[in-house]
């Protein structure tokens, strides 16, 4: 009797424990989104290397600023400025997230001499010839997908939740589904498989270097590689480091709101 009570108590405890700490796929992706969106502001100097399947590299450098301008609705503004190569130097891009309607996006092209509005529907278009699309560069709303934990798995240095995300409305999505390896320690996706809507095959693979560290208290990814499985072309996105080795990224520092205006797009000031 005593043994049956002990076993029962153990089962109840375990069940209670697993219920108290069991996460759903949605929970995991919510936490991952919170990590990505953490911080009221962000400023980074990033490198983007476009790598041919034969190893040839085209390098780009982009400076990025981001702020959350509406905390209650979690709305943000992002501005990017291309520093190199010369052919796109001075190109600037501004995105303003809105509540209840499409994001506003503008681009300044030096060859055009003016600021031009662009459509959010261009989200599936390649970002400056890279393997990232504009949509890839921005975060997707968690509510837009159904999320399910497939398993738990150790990937390199990190224990991960493996989460399958399938869009609720496939017409609005780039991919048929995504499978993300989200670290238990940081809730950062370190591997994301993106499956084609046309063929169902693996279309793109995003992998993150396992050197995730906190900067200004925020878990930060320093190196990511996006590979197009069809063409073999890859894009490496990384945070540039200074001569001292310090990465050019900072969070929650004051950024002038003028950065996020068409004035800045045109003048760079």
């Amino acid at each position, binding site marked *: 009797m005593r043994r049956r009570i002990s076993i029962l108590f153990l089962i109840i405890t375990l069940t209670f424990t697993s219920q108290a700490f069991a996460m759903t796929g949605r929970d995991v992706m919510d936490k991952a989104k919170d990590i990505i969106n953490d911080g009221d502001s962000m400023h980074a100097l990033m490198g983007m290397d476009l790598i041919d399947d034969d190893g040839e590299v085209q390098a780009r450098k982009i400076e990025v600023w981001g702020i959350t301008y509406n905390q209650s609705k979690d709305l943000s503004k992002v501005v990017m400025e291309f520093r190199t190569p010369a052919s796109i130097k001075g190109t600037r891009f501004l995105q303003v997230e809105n509540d209840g*309607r499409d994001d506003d996006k503008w681009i300044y092209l030096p060859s055009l001499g003016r600021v031009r*509005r662009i*459509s959010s529907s261009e989200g599936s278009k*390649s970002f400056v010839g890279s393997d990232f699309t504009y949509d890839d560069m921005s975060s997707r709303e968690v509510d837009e997908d159904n999320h399910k934990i497939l398993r738990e798995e150790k990937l390199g240095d990190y224990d991960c939740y493996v989460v399958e995300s399938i869009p609720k409305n496939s017409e609005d999505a780039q991919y048929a589904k995504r499978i993300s390896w989200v670290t238990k320690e940081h809730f950062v996706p370190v591997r994301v498989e993106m499956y084609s809507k046309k063929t169902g095959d693996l279309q793109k693979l995003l992998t993150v270097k396992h050197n995730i560290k906190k900067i200004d208290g925020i878990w930060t990814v320093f190196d990511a590689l996006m590979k197009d499985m069809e063409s073999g072309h890859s894009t490496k996105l990384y945070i540039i480091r200074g001569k001292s080795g310090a990465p050019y990224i*900072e969070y929650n520092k004051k950024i002038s709101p003028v950065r996020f205006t068409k004035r800045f797009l045109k003048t760079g000031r």
Partner: protein
Amino acid sequence: MRRLLTFLIAFTLMFSLSTAKICAFESAFDQDSSSGDSGFGDNKTSSLEFSGSLEYKIRSILDKKSDSDLSYPSNSESELELGLDYSRDNSDLKATLAFDDNGDVALDEAFIRLYYDNFDLEAGKMKVVWGKGDKLHVVDNLNGEDLTDFINPEYLDRQIAEKMVKLNYYLGTGKLEAVYTPEFTANKLDREGDWVLSKVSKMKELKPIAVKEFGLTAALEIEDSLVGDESKELKDGQLALRYTNSKGGYDYGFSIYQGRLKNLSMDRSAIAKLEKGVYRDSQAFLNDLDLHYDKVTVLGAEFSSVLFGINSRGELAYYLTDDSDGDDPTVHNNKLAWIIGGDRDLPLHNVNVNLQMKSELILDKDKVDDNPADIDYSEDYFTNMMVLKVSDDFNNQRILPEVSLMYNLESQDYILDNQLEFIVKDDTSIKFNYKLFEGDGDTLFGQFDENDYISMVVNYEF
């Protein structure tokens, strides 16, 4: 001597740049006291950067065969463009020099920009583009155009920089621009090359008559006058205001421009009189001809938005001249002009389709119709030009094919440009064009029916 001096100054600047303190990317994270941004460092430094491009172009006009060996003649030219950018805490200096292989050096643009909290002030020689159209505008009137290569160069490259003072005042998300130019520059036309407009050719046909009537020297002066030139008189200054803003997914703007039309007007009846031998001297002819650039006030409106997934844009302009009644044959009538268009990515590879329609309606045409000497006399007083561009990209934007069509609906003449660009290495591109001009000889594009050409442009940017 002047060209050599300009070149030496530019060369010296370039040399000194190599020893000047050119800030690397660390400057991107320097404290920016004017905007209050945080930074990685506290060093406030000025920075001097140079950039530019080296371009080699070869073009062969296909309809003109050389008599000697029946091969197509080709023209080649190279151009070095050097850009200087000097930035300090609250100001910028930007300049562009263009060197060609004839030894000519031109100061393409050169201006300073001073930054204040709610406004910035610009002064110098600048190109200013107004309007939401895509390289096609009706509210963009501040700069004259270099049409010596017709409209073959890109829109911005055709603009002739004008000396001006410009105030940009920021009111929330709105921007008010005020511009004053003490002079204005008329459109520059080709006089003797492959792109002489038919109206210029007709003027040149007067030369033998002028030689016969007035002698060679006077005839040459008349010829020069008829092609037009930039004006430096104060009364030819320009003034313009523009307000733009964005609200609820719409960008909109209003503008007013006061200046001059950029193409010559004249009293054509003087030409008929010249042909009849009425004039005793060239000055009497020129006085009667009354060459001038019409004063004009342009009231403009513009908008852009994303409508049904299409990047939509439009401009509307009302050109108000001194000929409000439409009965002065020497002055252009008032007219309405507008552009409506948009572009969209298709769900087919990376195809983008860009379609715009530019329309012009000359008002009071009943006052013009029965007077062939009127400057506005034409077959069509309501004209529409369609500009269609279809582009794609392959191999991560390293292969860029593009086809564009400019088609005048009423006169049915067109330009068809087939382009293929390869991004070869780093910032090197090679662009091939096969351009066709079709239409009747008295139409805008058809007049160059024999100028179909192929070209190759190698461009290196730094």
